């Protein structure tokens, strides 16, 4: 008995079997809390389900039909695209400029890099609270600065036209350092010999930027563009803290609408919220695939 137990355990000590013990816990977690929910999203989106998890039957594709005629959803999609369309280019351009300028390792440049990264480690809750104070029309100092400069007083988060630009500015402020760090790592991995050769050929700084740095940086740059776009399509935190989707729903995004539909507004329609999630997933996958193909082609062209 004891011998068979020992030989049984010894069997698990063979690398090809022990491997399953090593991966089992992590894979179980991923299976249970990523794969199962992904499949379940598809299932729930075809059911009537409220936040008390009462399933009132299978309704097929009714939710998806409802998506098409939902004006509030269409607005949320427009707001999300507005956010992504402005925020992503701004963040990438600012990150690229600072990364190019700060990529050499001098003490001052290293210091600037570490400071620019600081907002990225702060929660959107805390910096959103700070931004709401700073931009408050009555008590905030930034509107007062504008007045001192002779510019019109802006209402920022309270003004339907300026709320989204304010959220965009806040997001760029917080996140450009994150992309910058990725791009600096990419720039630093470009061999110096490329630049030396370019200098021998008489190429100036600008020429070096467009002929060496940017083409060689394409993998990091495309990674930044794609991940920033994906994050922008899921924008929620900063809006939840600052404008809560207002004023006049002008900053309600897709994820905000999912949250409101499923968890905030009666009748807590989890089924319909899941259908919107499925739509968002398809959106994000499509954007990722298109961008990936575009960048791979660019990389191939440049090589």
């Amino acid at each position: 008995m004891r011998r068979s137990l020992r030989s049984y355990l010894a069997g698990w000590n063979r690398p090809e079997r022990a491997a399953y013990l090593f991966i089992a816990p992590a894979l179980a977690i991923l299976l249970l809390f990523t794969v199962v929910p992904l499949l379940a999203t598809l299932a729930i989106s075809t059911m009537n389900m409220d936040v008390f998890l009462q399933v009132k039957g299978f309704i097929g594709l009714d939710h998806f039909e409802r998506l098409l005629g939902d004006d509030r959803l269409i607005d949320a999609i427009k707001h999300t695209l507005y956010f992504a369309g402005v925020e992503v280019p701004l963040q990438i351009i600012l990150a690229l400029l600072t990364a190019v300028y700060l990529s050499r390792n001098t003490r001052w440049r290293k210091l600037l890099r570490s400071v620019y990264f600081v907002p990225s480690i702060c929660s959107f809750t805390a910096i959103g609270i700070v931004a709401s104070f700073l931009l408050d029309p009555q008590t905030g100092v930034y509107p007062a600065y504008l007045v001192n400069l002779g510019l019109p007083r802006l209402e920022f988060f309270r003004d339907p036209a300026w709320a989204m630009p304010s959220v965009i500015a806040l997001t760029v402020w917080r996140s450009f350092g994150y992309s910058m760090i990725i791009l600096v790592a990419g720039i630093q991995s470009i061999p110096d010999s490329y630049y030396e050769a370019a200098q021998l050929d008489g190429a100036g700084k600008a020429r070096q930027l467009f002929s060496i740095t940017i083409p060689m940086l394409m993998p990091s740059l495309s990674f930044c563009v794609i991940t920033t776009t994906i994050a922008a399509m899921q924008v929620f935190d900063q809006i939840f803290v600052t404008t809560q989707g207002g004023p006049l729903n002008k900053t309600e995004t897709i994820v905000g609408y999912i949250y409101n539909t499923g968890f905030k507004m009666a009748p807590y329609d989890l089924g319909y919220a899941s259908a919107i999630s499925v739509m968002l997933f398809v959106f994000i996958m499509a954007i990722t695939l298109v961008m990936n193909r575009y960048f791979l082609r660019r990389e191939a062209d440049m090589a």
Partner: protein
Amino acid sequence: MGRKWTWGQAIGCLLTALLLIAVLHPFLWLVVAAFKPENEFMKYPPTVFASSYGFDSFIRVWDTIPLVAFFRNTIIFSAGVMAISVLLDSMAGYAFARLRFKGNKTLFTLVLITMMVPFQVLMIPLFVEVFKLGMLDTYWGLIIPRAASAFGIYLMRSFFISLPKDLEESGRVDGFNEFQIYWRLMLPLCKPVMITLGIFHLMNNWNDLLYPLMLTSSTEMRTLSAGLAMFVGQRNIEYGPTLAASLLALLPLLIVYVFAQRFFVQGVATSGMKG
């Protein structure tokens, strides 16, 4: 000082300095404002500096906001995820990198695919699942769904692959079993990458908003991000304590950042290398 400045350098220097001010200004304002007395916030026109300063906000914040509970929950949640996830990720990464077994490539590809699924798509079924497991509004309910991460497995695997070949053989010669080889031989070599991954998890979970917001329902179980966001949403609390709470919520990560900056940067930089 005898160096000549070109126009380009001067403009670059000026712009980066302006950006430095833009990045730092809100933080400096927060530090000053958290020490202002409450009536200073109502002044018109608003001013940055006050005529007197004090710890008033930091004293009253504990009565206005359940900050002790928020801190406790955030620490248990983010440190718990950090510890468990680094362990499970490193085990799986080790096996994928150094052990030959059937299905290695297929399973690893599946792991990489799960990395692409955004949380927002999963959140409703995840909420339902955690509820059905009876773990809604509990620490385990917050920690277990995050106890392993595809990115962590990917990061650990790429590190283990870079270790010298045949390292295992010396362990087998010494009579180690497979787990001892991983635990006693391999893990000590990957302390830096484990710290990098640990800090990556700590930062993401400490700051996360939507996830703890959904999986907790009572005020006593809220994390700092979720709890403070809910309090601000009510808009009827005092200014000083709100800012004091925000400053206190930011401080722990900022302190860790000052001492372990390179691990923060590495985590972010390596996440960009995977393309």
